[in-house]
């Protein structure tokens, strides 16, 4: 058995999603190689080399990998060694390039695993998490994306694995990077936050999300939203929690003015503690909430911000 994890990073730092992916990889078998493909990313390789359980880091440091264009990265992955398992995090980066890797290898991809049963059998959610499928692969290479909220993060220090430089440069003229707009925020990232406060259609406007910000500031929390709030134009889509947005599992999830549509629950029901604040006592969100407060959010939020 030989396992490769492709690191998620921004050329400067190794993303926590990679640490969860390494945990999933180590559940398959011992000894994990990590591929760091990027530009001026030696620091990321060093960070990956210090994760316990990593045998070797492969570093492909070239401008062609700077923006993780899938046409280049997938071509690199299929040439960087002979592996029985290739894993990456089910982030928008991983979901973009890994199916290309599977197709180039002529094998299936197993998307979004939440558990490892054996080296060829995995559990993954289907129907927005309303069912869990156990699937078995007979392919020579198992190509897998990992739902990071389902696996604890591996330790980030305590190892000094060797870093090997790969000279493979996969230039291509099919696609060109033409810009990126990342939302700048002092707050923790949604998928990495230990507390999230989310607003739904009940917030009535984007302006009213300021009430949520005040509570989030007190808690050091990230801010999320339901699809209804995004569709209504209150907040941008990168804040969306749900089947069609981000899947989160924080220690504490506070749902404000969110009714609890199936598609939203799919994105947050694995949170450790769920609080629901909604004036409709019949809202389905209360069926999954540990603590429910039936009241007007425009009264509750300022009070929370004051008393926390």
């Amino acid at each position, binding site marked *: 058995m030989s396992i490769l994890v492709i690191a998620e990073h921004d050329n400067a730092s190794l993303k926590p999603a990679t640490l969860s992916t390494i945990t999933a990889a180590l559940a398959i078998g011992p000894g994990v190689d990590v591929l760091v493909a990027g530009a001026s990313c030696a620091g990321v390789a060093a960070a990956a080399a210090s994760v316990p359980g990593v045998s070797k880091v492969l570093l492909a440091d070239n401008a062609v990998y700077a923006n993780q*264009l*899938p*046409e280049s990265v997938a071509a690199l992955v299929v040439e960087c060694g002979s592996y029985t398992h290739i894993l990456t995090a089910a982030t928008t980066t991983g*979901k*973009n390039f*890994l*199916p290309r890797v*599977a*197709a*180039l290898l*002529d094998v*299936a*991809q197993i*998307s979004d695993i939440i558990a490892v049963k054996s080296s060829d059998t995995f559990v*993954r959610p*289907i*129907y*927005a*998490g*309303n*069912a*869990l*499928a*156990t*699937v078995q*692969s*007979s*392919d020579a290479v198992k190509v897998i994306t990992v739902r990071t909220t389902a696996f604890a993060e591996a330790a980030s220090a305590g190892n000094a694995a060797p870093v090997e430089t790969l000279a493979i440069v996969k230039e291509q*003229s*099919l*696609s*060109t*990077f033409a810009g*990126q*707009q*990342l*939302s700048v925020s002092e707050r923790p*990232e949604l*998928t990495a936050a230990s*507390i999230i406060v989310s607003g739904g259609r009940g917030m009535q406007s984007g302006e009213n999300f300021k009430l949520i910000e005040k509570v989030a500031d007190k808690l050091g929390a990230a801010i999320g939203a339901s*699809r209804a709030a995004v569709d209504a134009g209150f907040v941008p*889509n*990168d804040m969306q929690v749900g*089947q069609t947005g981000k899947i989160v599992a924080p220690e*504490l999830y506070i749902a404000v003015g969110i009714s609890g549509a*199936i*598609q939203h629950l799919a994105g947050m029901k694995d949170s*450790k*503690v769920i*609080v629901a604040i909604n004036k409709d006592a019949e809202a389905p969100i*209360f069926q*999954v909430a*540990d*603590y*429910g*407060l039936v009241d007007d959010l425009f009264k509750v939020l300022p*009070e*929370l911000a004051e*008393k*926390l």
Partner: protein
Amino acid sequence: MKILVAVKRVVDANVKVRVKADNSGVELANAKMAINPFCEIAVEEAIRIKEKGQADEVIVVSIGEKACQEQIRTALALGADRGIHVETEDGLQPLAVAKLLRAIVQREHIDLVLVGKLSIDTDNNQVGQMLAAISGMPQGTFACGVEVQDGKLKVVREIDGGEQTVLLTLPAVVSTDLRLNEPRYASLPNIMKAKKKPIDTVTPTDLGVDVQSGLRTVSVEAPPVRTAGIKVGSVDELIARLKTEAKVI
């Protein structure tokens, strides 16, 4: 320019599915079926590109049992020009679907393929990327903006933390995200007109594609149920319980 749109017949997004008693899958008998919502966005985008005068023809393809012709008809009523039904068993794996689509892309000399980013039944998010890879095409996944510019394609993509813009050569594959557009409703005259539009039926054998997969479903189970907790009477009680009972703040 010729556009191919792939649509999948799935259980309606508003149906809450139940796992079968024998754990072989989910109960779909008599369930309401529909075009996968992301595929519907792909159909809408194709029609908009044609309406702008940037495409000559929109072909819609669906892969599965005979019933998926209903979803092809729906797409035709929305404005697609003609349909192709690849008649095969339901539940093909994404790689097999990608190979079938590649065969059609080659046969029809397609310039742009539009697919939904995932189907809401199997949640795989693979077909577009796989089709692009095996056809040597670039991909613009999770698109929230698509523009044809001087023979190239500008795609704005939804990524974690924001948006990314890529320029693709044609032919290319685009997978659609939710914010790309809001699909129209079919008008009654267009529904009538769609009945006369042609649907060509082919099989995987006709297309020379082996649809076998190395992946098999062992069992399907219901997820653990989360039970409702308690209702608190005030903000003070909520804060107190989160501090002392749940110990999360």
